[in-house]
């Protein structure tokens, strides 16, 4: 059976992609950020997961407001990155696992999640930046098949934090019921606090982010007491992306250990966080 061996929460700011591309990992601006990924890199090297379920949001590359799904899951053999219009260099295509995708979709729809099924989809920086961050080299990325899970955090109403946590739990169940011998990792991306629009642009909230990271392992429900509207005030309208980390957290179940954590302000306009959980049963 497939095993969920662990999960990572991570920001997905586009500038990170450029920094990796340009070899700035040890640059003074970037070092305090990338240092936080060393334990993740070591863990990925050691564990070599077969498949990554990558929870992210599209920022206007594949989806437009004509058809905006709450939860969209890829079921393609390959996912292409493409020009987003403002200069990020597209990465090589990512290899999918359509049979596993269909299993997950099927399990989720029978568990009453109303999934949008995508047999062809472009993945944007929300997807590619975490891929580069987890596996900085192309040859590493080539070893991991991907299942993209795109969440609407662009057009209100977003899914509730509670719904995200439940979706994660259902994903955990779907993975555990897949009868292939695969090591699976789940990545919850986006956030942490940041605000791109309005006079308050540049807003971050270290205190709240820190508490979120602190509570994520043992008390993920803590975030559920805030509506997405309240979160927009607290962590900025784009900071609400952190609800996607709950999908990752929900999938892992309660038998986990936290292996590392880092928090750094700023990357571009964003407070960047990373956390690594391992399934204790593995």
């Amino acid at each position, binding site marked *: 059976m497939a095993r969920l061996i662990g999960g990572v929460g991570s920001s997905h700011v586009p500038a990170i992609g450029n920094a990796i591309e340009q070899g700035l990992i040890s640059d003074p601006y970037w070092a305090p950020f990338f240092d936080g990924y060393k334990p993740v890199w070591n863990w990925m090297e050691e564990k070599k997961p077969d498949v990554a379920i990558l929870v992210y949001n599209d920022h206007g590359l594949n989806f437009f407001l004509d058809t905006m799904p709450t939860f969209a899951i890829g079921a393609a053999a390959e996912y292409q990155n493409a020009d987003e219009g403002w200069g990020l260099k597209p990465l090589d295509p990512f290899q999918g696992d359509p049979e596993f995708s269909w299993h997950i979709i099927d399990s989720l729809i029978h568990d009453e999640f109303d999934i949008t099924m995508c047999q062809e989809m472009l993945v944007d920086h929300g997807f590619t930046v975490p891929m580069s961050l987890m596996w900085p080299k192309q040859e590493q990325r080539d070893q991991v098949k991907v299942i993209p899970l795109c969440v609407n955090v662009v057009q*209100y109403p977003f899914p509730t934090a509670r719904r995200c946590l439940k979706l994660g739990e259902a994903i955990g169940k779907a993975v555990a019921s897949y009868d292939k011998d695969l090591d699976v990792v789940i990545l919850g991306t986006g956030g942490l606090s940041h605000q791109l629009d309005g006079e308050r642009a540049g807003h971050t909230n270290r205190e709240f*982010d820190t508490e979120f990271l602190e509570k994520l392992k043992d008390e993920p429900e803590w975030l559920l007491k805030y509506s997405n*509207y309240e979160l927009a005030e607290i962590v900025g309208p784009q900071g609400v992306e952190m609800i996607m980390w709950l999908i990752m957290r929900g999938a892992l179940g309660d038998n986990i250990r936290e292996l590392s954590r880092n928090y750094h302000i700023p990357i571009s306009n964003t407070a960047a966080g990373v956390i690594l959980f391992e399934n204790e049963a593995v």
Partner: protein
Amino acid sequence: MKSLAGKKPIPGTMVFEGRMAMKGYALNKMCFSFNKAENRDAFKADEDGYCTKYGLTDEQRDAVKKRNVLALLNLGGNIYYLAKLTGMFGLNMQDIGAQQAGISLEEFKAKLLAAGETKNG
């Protein structure tokens, strides 16, 4: 919007809900087209003509002309789609952050660095 009805506005902050999305649909659709290089070229060749083709209002066309991000947001633009427009003007997220906050780029960057100055949590 049920969930937003009667909610107090968040100072200096946009919430992109149904009403804003309706207002900005044509503007955002135009911006979405800028994923393609040929559309960016067409816009650059005739900015106002391109805006007219997408059915932008006079106010929206004026805000495009003035590269006024706050005005574009208030007219229904969504920041992720607008980024494709402002990218063509050579403005990145920090540039438009500074523009919206009404401070210089250096001040904007300094403000973000200051938020990071306290010991990492």
